[in-house]
């Protein structure tokens, strides 16, 4: 299977499947900023106005995972695994009423992985 920048744990995948059934077409959009930022928000696809400035990183359980381009600039060498934990966000993300919160585990990609996505394999040279 081709390398994708985003992955998901089985626990989180189960939650996504449940929410898809309840809400229909959904997307992940990664947020930044205060309080509950830097976490993926799961929202109804219709809800968010998406355009070229939202970069599609991949698909998880058939759900598109987007990030805004200024954030992508910093994240492009990061491999993201979406997981789920108990918690309360105070955003509009759909898993919140379940007493759960999507979180991210991340690691820097290997040179090989970066190259397979068409990026330079000189990943730590960000200065």
């Amino acid at each position, binding site marked *: 299977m081709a390398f994708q920048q985003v992955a998901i744990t089985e626990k989180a995948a189960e939650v996504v499947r449940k929410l898809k059934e309840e809400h229909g077409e959904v997307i992940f959009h990664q947020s930044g900023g205060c309080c509950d930022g830097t976490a993926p928000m799961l929202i109804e696809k219709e809800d968010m106005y998406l355009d070229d400035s939202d970069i599609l990183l991949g698909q998880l359980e058939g759900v598109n995972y987007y990030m805004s381009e200024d954030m992508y600039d910093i994240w492009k060498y990061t491999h993201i695994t979406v997981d789920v934990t108990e918690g309360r966000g105070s*955003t509009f993300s*759909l898993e919140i009423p379940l007493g759960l919160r999507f979180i991210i585990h991340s690691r820097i990609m290997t040179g090989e992985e970066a190259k397979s996505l068409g990026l330079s394999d000189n990943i730590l040279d960000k*200065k």
Partner: protein
Amino acid sequence: MIYSKPKFKEKYGNFINGKFVEPVGGEYFDNYSPIDNSFLAKYPRSKKEDVNNAVAAANAAKDAWEKVSPIEKARLLNKVADIIEENLEEFAVVETADNGKPIRETLNADVPLAADHWRYFAAAIRAEEGSATELDENTVSLIIKEPMGVVAQIIPWNFPLLMLSWKLPPALAAGNTVVLKPAEQTPASATLLMEKIADVFPPGVINIVHGFGPEAGKPLASHAGVDKVAFTGETTTGQLIMQYASKNINPVTMELGGKSPNIFFNSVMDADDEFLDKAIEGAVLFAFNQGEVCTCPSRLLVQEDIYDEFMKRVIDRVNAIKQGNPYDTETQMGAQASKDQFEKIMSYIKIGEEEGGKILTGGKPADVEGEFKNGYYIKPTLIEGHNKMRVFQEEIFGPVLSVTKFKDEADAIEIANDTMYGLGAGVWSRDAHQLYQIPRAIKAGRVWVNNYHAYPAHAPFGGYKKSGFGRETHLMMLDHYRQNKNMLISYDKKKLGFF
């Protein structure tokens, strides 16, 4: 001194139209304390119907509230301030239980600042004047400020009572009625406040609806019966709210966080005096409120020629931070607000190391004893690296300080501005030129000069760039909650001559 845990009722209601009511659907959610993961109370899991009721009550009350004189409005706002002050300890203990922050902070910062904010807008509304201009001999232009009507406010969990006190007073003073949704992590102090001020305002003027973002926040922000939305939180939800507002052609104000640089120039170490001591504290202020502040000074920029000496002092001061029982007045750092926040911060520490960052101190969960083992405690952490690393670019919202050095003024400014955010910044120097010119070059709404983490009323607060727009804690906030009526009056008896 160690305060006792506050007692809570089994469950609480929404405050709509002057009284506490059960949620229409009868559902509640459990609220826990992050200090020890103990159950506190149940709060309403409100849905669309509850929001509709609250917005309807606010709409029914708005015409009469608009007509209430500034004298009377101010009297009521001052009454709230009095009540908060009279119950200072009770509010402080409840806030500590709900959020996890140390009692030292709630007693000395959160609650007093909250009370003062109600007083500030009581004063501001009394001191206002409109304007009258003679445009020509026969024409007079009057500008009258009118409220918008019903304001929706959605606030975060990091300073629950204080954020409520930044939002409600200006909206009310400007003549609006309000529906406010507290964060679901921290519903307690808003509820306590409404219990104590239930009879102060006419019914429908203040309405509090508890619930989850997607079930209560979304219907509130997108409600056609709302005339303005104010939000403090993160970027994706901020974007969604701006979209909903666009459907209703409603104005909004947003505060969406930051990655604030705290910059120390070499003149700071010219003397080993009180000011240097203050500067060291300034660097360590990333630990205030466990780092859960939108303006957390989370990037430390130190001029390279003082770096080693300065960092030695900073590390010593960080290692001396007293972490422990948040109910103990000696404790300086308490619990993070929730499990997911704890997980997020720990994963950032890991990523910081993976990216080549060096942990100078901390980097692990804190060792806590007894009942606190179930709470969420992290050691204050310093990571040394460079500004392109993720821990330098993203808001971690925890007690993690990313540390780097800079060469000269131009380098400091470049690094400081190399962020998509622009909320706060700190500049420390003894040089008179730098004290003006550096802050002037930084793209942030609040630049602290030789201090940090001060939020006095009458100093405007808000962001540049992706940190949002709108300015709070200043009378200019009144204008964000009003619209201008221009009366253009002619005293000319002669017609125009067109028809």
